[in-house]
């Protein structure tokens, strides 16, 4: 169960204003925010984006440490990308040069932008996943897929599939630990030897998991059929999302924030 947390994101239970928002609003706003990050074209724009993010973090009532934990795993990738930008971008004043590597003022500028974008996008995603349970996120995704129905995309089936995936992740994780222990008990050492040797040792782990999952899928399909599931028939819904006053407020705020950002584009800074 401990492992499942890592995969399912970092929902932190709470009752903040953000926790209570409709997941559709949160998913859309997160997506929208990522888009407008690319609209900022000067330091004032980025400053405004950081201010908005800061307000959201405050509204989530979750400790800052948690957001830092969201960035930490990606630290090296960020550093690498920033370094590349720093060394390979050209333009502006040259501070240092070695062959075709150069640190220029243009490079500084570019890498600062990249760094800012990384932090903004990762942290806004953490705001979303930390305040929204996975089940609600799935419901929001389903809602957004709904129009695809008219393109004959099987939205209902995809929704059930999504639910089953979420349901079985912890089960499969448990199963993995169990099979791994059973094979370790039979003398397998999963974490020693060359890469090829290690890959070979995955066979006694992957085959049982594969076979087990197939058997599970077959039994589950029978059970679902017995419970009246018909992929082609209409179904009613237990989890229905309700739009509240706060959700309207959130959408209006999002529009205002976007407008302010657009204004910063034309300010002479």
């Amino acid at each position, binding site marked *: 169960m401990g492992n499942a947390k890592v995969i399912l994101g970092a929902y932190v239970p709470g009752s903040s204003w953000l926790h209570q928002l409709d997941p559709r609003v949160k998913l859309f706003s997160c997506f929208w925010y990522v888009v407008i990050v690319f609209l900022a074209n000067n330091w004032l724009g980025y400053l405004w984006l950081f201010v908005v993010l800061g307000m959201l973090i405050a509204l989530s009532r979750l400790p800052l440490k948690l957001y830092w934990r969201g960035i930490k795993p990606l630290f090296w990738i960020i550093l690498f990308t920033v370094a590349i930008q720093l060394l390979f971008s050209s333009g502006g004043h040259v501070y240092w040069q070695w062959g075709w590597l150069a640190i220029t003022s243009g490079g500084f500028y570019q890498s600062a932008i990249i760094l800012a974008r990384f932090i903004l996008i990762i942290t806004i995603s953490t705001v979303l996943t930390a305040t929204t349970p996975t089940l609600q996120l799935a419901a929001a995704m389903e809602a957004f897929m709904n129009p695809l129905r008219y393109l004959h995309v099987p939205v209902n089936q995809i929704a059930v599939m999504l639910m089953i995936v979420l349901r079985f992740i912890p089960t499969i994780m448990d199963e993995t630990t169990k099979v791994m222990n059973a094979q370790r008990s*039979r003398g397998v050492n999963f974490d020693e030897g060359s890469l090829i040797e290690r890959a070979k040792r995955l066979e006694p782990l992957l085959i049982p998991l594969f076979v087990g999952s197939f058997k599970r899928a077959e039994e589950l399909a029978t059970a679902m059929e017995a419970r009246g599931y018909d992929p082609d028939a209409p179904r009613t819904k237990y989890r229905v999302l309700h739009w509240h006053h706060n959700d309207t407020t959130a959408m209006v705020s999002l529009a205002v924030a976007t407008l302010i950002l657009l204004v910063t584009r034309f300010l002479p800074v």
Partner: protein
Amino acid sequence: MSAIEFLNVNYAYQADTPMATLAVKDFSLKLESGSFTAIVGHTGSGKSTLMAMLDGLLVPTHGSLRVGEVTIDSHADKKTLAKLRKGVGYVFQFPESQLFAETVLKDVMFGPLNMGVSLEQAKEQALTALRSLKLPEDINDRSPFELSGGQMRRVAIAGVLAMHPRVLILDEPTAGLDPQASEDLLNLVNQLHQKGTTILMITHQMEQAARYADHVLVMKQGQRTAFMTPHELFGKPDLLKEAGILPPASVDFANQLVVHGLKLTDEVPLTIEQLADQLADHLKQGGRANG
């Protein structure tokens, strides 16, 4: 010298985090070589954690344990753990879910080969193990996935026995088997016990504990509630009640007779045969038997 010794063992999941939970608390126990211990307790009582440590799958957070010559504590390195596993076999719950090789024989040879024995030796050990589980020889070259559920279970157990463990751990080996297959399997475990293998069997079936084990270890919240012979344990209704254990049907039946004012002997009937013997004695003495 005892075969197995736990000394003040603690185990914490997610140690060093605020979420740390103690699954085993200050646990000490000695088991004799060649003994048969039944381990009972509810889910989360720490019995599986205890067995995982015995097989080197988990390392105690504090304290130490010894199996034969090998001693394990929180600093144990991989080599020592591997050495421990050589002497300990672990039949997990629903062990058929660990089968993977193309043929039954290859699957059973997998363990011995990992232990470093020669190909020929591994094959011999595998064939002997398969025979001891009364599996027909014509399945050896078939895929394990073509077999019936009961046969798969036996192939998986053969895969553990082929490693010739001196200590054998079994976790609910009869779960999901039909009564006949269960009895066959338990008889085999008992044979291994008689040949000198030290057996530890996790079970919810008190009939099994009463019939086969020489000691019963009762676990609750990471600690041992009791470690005694089946005779002692099942003669203590208060202790059983506190531990949430339903006694074997024969003991229950004898208790019912006591409630109706009929006490047979001081000896608790651990099996239905013992109960029938006691009843037959009484009925014949009473002169009322008419058969």
